[in-house]
């Protein structure tokens, strides 16, 4: 029964959003049935549908988890976008520096590396870079909040701009292959490529970019669950989120928890870089993120800040983002902005739940959960 109660509001929100969307589709002049068939039907075909849906879901699981961990500490991490950008760039940088000879866009072999490491060392190193750099970038606003009390929402938003500008500057002026018309770095060494799942699953072609990072995302979900609910640190983070004053009275170092939660959050967001750089494009591609950091907020909200919820919410949003393209292409009038309408309405309804019954008013949803 407890589980049902947890599920019912997100479900209502999704169904209601689809109804609202159907009204829009009717007004625009297409058939809602056909439109929704395009939107949802293409997500479950084998192998392209399922492969791409899970691939699209991977970054959203990471950012959803990132936002959820911060939520649990009473913090709103709007900075996942910036964290994943710096982390992705750093991952590419490390994998180029230690990747050995690569073939550039013109088909010429070039060597940008100082030393060529084998895959068994380079892959863990690349993953670690993504996590550590993301965590550092996330810890900065955490530290500013803990030390000076400056609000994390403002700081994370501003650090997004810094992150995007910084990595785009480095890409353009220092790490782009001269003559490449596209704003991207040189490719990373082949030793840094993590295998695509097509290697292991029969029937799944290797061209589908679904890769080991998806498995890593599922493992991250399990670890976050254990961290938050089965460790002392997780308990302290949740206690801080529930009531910082009481937590402090109970002997918890609240400032430390804020920095810790933001660092963990940033590290999770940074793991998007593993999927993007080591699993998909094998280079840093400027502007690659399809607002993953911001969609992560919606994913965490819909998933009720729980790792399992985050997985399902991320898959739903991934279905929508894939389906949007089919709607755009194969319906007469409806554009893929329908997906934005649906996402927005889902968030609206989920947030409305807090208004319905949250005892803490506007932010009830964020703080309501029991420690």
């Amino acid at each position, binding site marked *: 029964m407890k589980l049902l109660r947890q599920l019912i509001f997100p479900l209502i929100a999704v169904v209601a959003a689809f109804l609202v969307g159907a009204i829009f589709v009717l007004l625009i002049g297409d058939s809602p049935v056909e439109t929704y068939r395009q939107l949802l039907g293409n997500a479950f075909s084998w192998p392209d549908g399922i492969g*791409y849906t899970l691939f699209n879901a991977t970054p959203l699981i990471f950012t959803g988890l990132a936002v959820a961990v911060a939520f649990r500490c009473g913090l709103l991490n709007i900075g996942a976008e910036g964290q994943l950008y710096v982390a992705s760039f750093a991952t590419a940088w490390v994998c180029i520096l230690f990747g050995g000879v690569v073939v550039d866009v013109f088909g010429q072999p070039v060597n940008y590396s100082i030393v060529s490491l084998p895959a068994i060392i380079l892959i863990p190193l690349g993953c670690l870079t993504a996590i550590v750099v993301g965590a550092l970038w996330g810890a900065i606003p955490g530290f500013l909040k803990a030390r000076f009390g400056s609000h994390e929402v403002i700081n994370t938003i501003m650090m997004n701009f810094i992150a995007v500008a910084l990595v785009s500057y480095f890409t353009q002026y220092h790490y782009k292959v001269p003559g490449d*018309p596209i704003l991207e770095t040189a490719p990373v060494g082949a030793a840094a490529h993590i295998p695509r799942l097509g290697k292991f699953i029969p029937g799944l072609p290797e061209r589908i970019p679904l890769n080991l990072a998806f498995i890593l995302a599922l493992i991250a979900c399990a670890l976050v669950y254990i961290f938050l609910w089965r460790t002392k640190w997780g308990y302290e983070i949740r206690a801080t989120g529930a009531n910082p004053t009481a937590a402090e009275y109970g002997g918890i170092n609240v400032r430390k928890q804020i920095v810790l939660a933001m660092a963990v959050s940033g590290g999770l967001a940074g793991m998007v870089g593993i999927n993007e750089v080591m699993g998909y494009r094998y280079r840093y591609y400027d502007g690659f993120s399809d607002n993953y950091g911001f969609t992560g907020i919606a994913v965490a909200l819909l998933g009720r800040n729980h790792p399992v919820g985050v997985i399902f919410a991320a898959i739903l949003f991934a279905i929508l983002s894939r389906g949007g*393209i089919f709607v755009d292409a194969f319906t007469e009038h409806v554009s893929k902005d329908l997906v934005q309408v649906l996402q927005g309405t889902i968030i609206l309804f989920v947030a409305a739940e807090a208004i319905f019954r949250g005892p803490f008013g506007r932010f009830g949803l964020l703080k309501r959960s029991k420690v």
Partner: protein
Amino acid sequence: MRKYTLLTFLVALCALALVLAGPACTTKGSSSTDDKSKIHVGIVFDIGGKDDRSFNAAAWVGVKCAETGKRPDGTPCENKKPLDIVLRDVEPGTPNAIEPAMRAFAERNYDLIIGVGFAQAPIMEQVAKDYPNIRFAIVDGVSELPNVASLVFKEHEGSFLVGMLAAKTTKSDTLGFIGGMDIPLIHRFETGYEEGAHAVNPNIRIIQNYVGVTDSAWNNPGKGKELALSQIGKGADVIFTAAGNSGLGAFDAVEQAGTTPDGRATHFVIGVDSDQNCVKPGFVLTSMVKRVDNAVYQIVLDVVNGQFSGGIHVYGLDKDGVGYAMDQCNQKLVQPEAIQEAEAAKQKITSGQIKVTDAMAK
């Protein structure tokens, strides 16, 4: 008790969904999409989208003419007959949506998939490898796969001609050039423009600026206007823009510079890609048009006639792939003598007597 009200609510919503959806599906049957006998064409636009009044818009005109014989605004296409095709388009909006969009068409076995913009070239390379039986076309990009047609333009030749017109028009012997993103493709416009101007008068000075180094450089009219005003401040009186949407800022700048008492503008701008002469009539000297519409229409026609060939398709002055636009909005601005000289140069370029430097040639 409350649980049940929630459930009731949910059931009611589902019922409502059925009611809404029920009649709708009968009103509209399956459209022409499923007619397998027709040639299916899918086009994937660049980030700018099909309403950018420039590059993407031209590609949209080409495929729309192939589908209906009419331009998107409803006016008939000259020399382009409808080809009875099924046309579908996607505006990806983000770089990440380009590959799935191409694959969406490929999964459904489309006959021709067109990608617009150089940024799509590496993506198309991947997709085209996975679907060797589907024909692809890339505008402004180059691929060596046998099933990909690369549609490229000799922008330097068209820019040479507008450079001549600019040099014949300037009174200060100073010209301006505003590029969008600082990439080799745009340098091609710049060098052609310079050479054209210097062919008329070797002492002409050219001030050049670029809006930026990222994708956003195509979409920053504020910065475009700022650059244009500073070039005007340094004496430039004809400014050529190759900056997508940012170029429209330069249009504002020359308008702001005003007119002489007899109504002639003191400063002019030269538009790019589409015919932009009538965007600000009286202030636009001409436009360096890049006939993406012709190239796109031609490749659709090739597929319909079964004559598709991969490789590089070059559109220069000889095939009317590039050129300068003359119409009612600018015919009083350009001296007839200048046009004569430009036409003479055009002959010489197509016959090979004049070689315009291609900044992208290695």
